[in-house]
């Protein structure tokens, strides 16, 4: 390769230089976040009446809508992110080491956004801590929502542990290259650090990764989150064993897209980052994004087929409604077209293009958001209680609801920008591997 090898200096470059572009992006993201804060303020003052949510049943509306759809989306990206990072650590896939920490950071950021969505969704957010904690010993036995809060907390803790453990040796070794002004932060991270701990930390991270990989299909997006929906038999659109695989495939698709997008942005913004995160990583992430979107599309096919053949009334109704909804096909196209694009690249029909991959990543992320929101809404619009099934219900989110998507996206970008000014978002290990490979030649 003609590019200079990635070096530790490249890793600390984002920390040192806030450019004009940086401030521009920070400004735009802040505007998005401020719009969201204002919208939420209006909602707090006037109640959820400012949304177009309503009572399902005689009111003909949906009681869960954009907020919950966006929640699923963020949690999916987060859970997909941690699965990517755990797979890299567990199987020691050196190729993807440059994006392992990005995936972990995406998990922490996206989980936080998911948490914000839950708060925004609640009628009485002020009570959430006290009410939940007081009743937890009882509700954890029965309420999927209590399970949900449990696993989100669990994964937040696991990811944060993971991240802080693996960060210590990097900070220690890069210390002299890092800005002095942030010394208190680094001192905190390096609290009682001893270089001898590195092999121990390595093993701990491996076990954490194993735990995450085992628990992912059981408790993450292949488990508790879809069970919030899959267990309610009164909503045929949600009920069933296919819901969890659908969620997991959507999560992994959007997480691959998310990690790729972040990697592409950093490559674009900083000198020589194409060496830090080489093309083959983007190429590989695209491949996996294609695989998971293929599974996603295949599962959609199953659901549509089952719903269109000789389905029970409720299942048939929701399937027919989904198929008749143009929004659904927009979401499907947003996933099928990138899938085709990636496939054509691999078949050699299309040339590999970073710009094209960025567009494909954005498309699948949007596709999953739309599909998951539609899933939430249609489940409630077409309930099993067929007498209500004939209520002409509808739901279109208000600008206040849409502001939450905009705002949390802005907050996530701000989070990444902030973190990238504090710590190296790519591990030293990734750069060292490149070096040792070169040395071997």
């Amino acid at each position, binding site marked *: 390769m003609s590019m200079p090898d990635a070096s530790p200096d490249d890793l600390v470059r984002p920390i040192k230089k806030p450019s004009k572009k940086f401030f521009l992006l920070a400004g735009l993201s802040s505007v998005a976040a401020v719009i969201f804060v204002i919208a939420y303020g209006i909602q707090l003052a006037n109640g959820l*009446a400012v949304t177009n949510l*309503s009572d399902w049943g005689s009111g003909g509306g949906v*009681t869960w809508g954009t907020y919950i759809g966006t929640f699923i989306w963020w949690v999916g990206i987060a859970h997909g992110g941690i699965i990517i990072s755990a797979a890299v650590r567990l199987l020691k896939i050196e190729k993807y080491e440059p994006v392992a920490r990005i995936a972990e950071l995406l998990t922490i950021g996206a989980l936080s956004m998911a948490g914000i969505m839950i708060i925004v969704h609640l009628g009485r957010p002020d009570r959430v801590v006290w009410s939940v904690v007081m009743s937890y010993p009882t509700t954890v036995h029965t309420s999927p929502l209590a399970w949900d809060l449990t696993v989100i907390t669990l994964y937040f803790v696991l990811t944060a542990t993971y991240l802080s453990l693996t960060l210590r040796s990097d900070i220690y070794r890069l210390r002299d290259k890092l800005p002095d002004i942030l010394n208190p932060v680094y001192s905190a991270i390096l609290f009682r650090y001893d270089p001898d701990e590195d092999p121990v930390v390595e093993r701990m991270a491996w076990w954490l990764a194993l735990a995450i990989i085992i628990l992912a299909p059981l408790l993450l997006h292949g488990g508790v989150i879809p069970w919030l929906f899959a267990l309610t038999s009164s909503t045929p659109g949600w009920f069933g064993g296919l819901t969890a695989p659908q969620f997991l495939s959507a999560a992994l698709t959007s997480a691959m897209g998310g990690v790729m997008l972040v990697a592409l942005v950093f490559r674009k913004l900083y000198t020589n980052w194409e060496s830090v995160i080489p093309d083959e990583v983007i190429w590989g992430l695209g491949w996996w994004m294609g695989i998971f979107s293929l599974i996603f599309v295949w599962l959609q096919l199953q659901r549509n087929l089952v719903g269109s053949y000789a389905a029970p009334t409720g299942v048939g109704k929701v399937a027919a409604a989904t198929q008749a909804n143009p929004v659904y096909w927009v979401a499907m196209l947003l996933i099928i077209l990138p899938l085709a694009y990636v496939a054509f690249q691999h078949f050699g029909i299309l040339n590999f293009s970073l710009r094209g991959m960025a567009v494909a990543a954005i498309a699948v992320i949007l596709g999953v958001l739309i599909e998951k929101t539609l899933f939430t809404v249609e489940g409630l619009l077409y309930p099993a209680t067929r007498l209500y099934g004939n209520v002409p219900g509808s739901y279109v989110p*208000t600008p*206040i609801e849409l502001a939450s998507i905009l705002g949390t996206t802005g907050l996530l970008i701000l989070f990444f920008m902030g973190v990238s000014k504090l710590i190296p978002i790519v591990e030293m290990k990734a750069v060292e591997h490149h070096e040792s490979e070169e040395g071997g030649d």
Partner: protein
Amino acid sequence: MSTEESVKHSYGPEWEEESREVLSEVDFDTELGMEMAKDAEKLSKGEISEEEFYSRHNEKVQEEFGIDARPTDPRSSEPLDKDTVEDALNDDVVAEPVPSKHAERAKEARQEGGGGGDGGDGGDGDDDDDSGFSRRTVLKSVGVAAAGVAAGTWNQRNPGGIWDENRKIEPAGPGTSNDNVQMGFVIDNDACIGGAHCAQACEFENQTPDGALWQFVFQFEEPDRDEAEFLVRPCQHCSDPPCVKVCPVRARHKRTSDGIVLTDYDICIGCRYCQVACPYGVNYFQWGEPKMEGPQSVGNFKEQNADLPALDDPDRVDDPAYDKRGKHVAGPQPEKGIMGKCVFCVHRQDSGDPELEGTTACYEACPVDAIHVGDMNDPESKPRQYLEEVADEVKNSGAGYDTTDEDSEWQRDRHVSRWRFQEDRGTKPNVIYVGHQPSEDAKWVDEPGAYEDYGLEREREGFDLESDH
């Protein structure tokens, strides 16, 4: 299970006496019925095999009914006569076309046009009467259980209450507050005239906001019938309520003293999972600020209920919105962002006024007495007694119908069955309906008799943010 309970559940002397009484009122052999019932219990306990059970009384059944349609060997039995089976299946054992107590009144009310729209005066009776099998023959062919025990079945199947499991889960004991009361409704949908008096009364009594129809009346049509049907839908106060199960904060709960399902307004976080999980759609969220004064307001509710005797008790919270346990569960609009639903007029149950206890606003307002309120576990309660009445009417009227009656066609269309709404969801609802059960293809119709005509709003109050709309 205690000995006392097991006696109740098994076929003891009390049961025998009651069953004999029931069986003696029909034309068929009482002894045979008793024997078969006892063997049936042995079968269910696994003491005898299915094969043995069917072959035991084969001869006697043949003799008594002329046919024994039960398979003598369940594995190799000959297929039953197709017509017989279909007729039997199409005809609910308890679904005899005899109007229940209030059906006459309902009919009159419909003719007077005093209710919510009548689509016509009865559809074409597509009956099997001239198919060669009279209903009587069908009953015979179905066998003993169908004929003799039918009317008594309800009681025998549910000796201790409508949900036996409840007894096991929450045994009553002296000195405990839980005396195993389960409040519920029996609602005669055939008697209902669709006037929505219940919904109006509920809205007034509980001062619920527009769009929050804690009590709701579906008007629906079956594809093959012109006649409008009604389904009255309060909260079902389930014995296994999914809303309670999913609540992440235990705000939604089942009051142990009487089985009413309530929301603790002081704990609810407004996640709306209860609303999502409930198959009946009975939950209504408080989307905006509750009204404190004027019509449909919190103030009105408090004023209406300021004189409840129980509120004089120094141990009680002096506020009708708090129940006897001091929990904020009752009455009017919950605070902004909190879930509300039918509270079984809990302020009445806890009022200390014997005239109000055991009643609800919907029950009181119904002009045709279609709604019956009380303890579903008490065989002497009003709803259970009404079920008995219906059973008796079916039984006493014989199996055929009076074709000389000018209303016979209309009567034939009526299927007096007893059922629970969406029982297959496993919720164990404590509302038992009498009358027509909506089919898979039943469609809710708004016209005639639109809800708005009764001064009720179906949609929640909107919110106008200038930039919004």
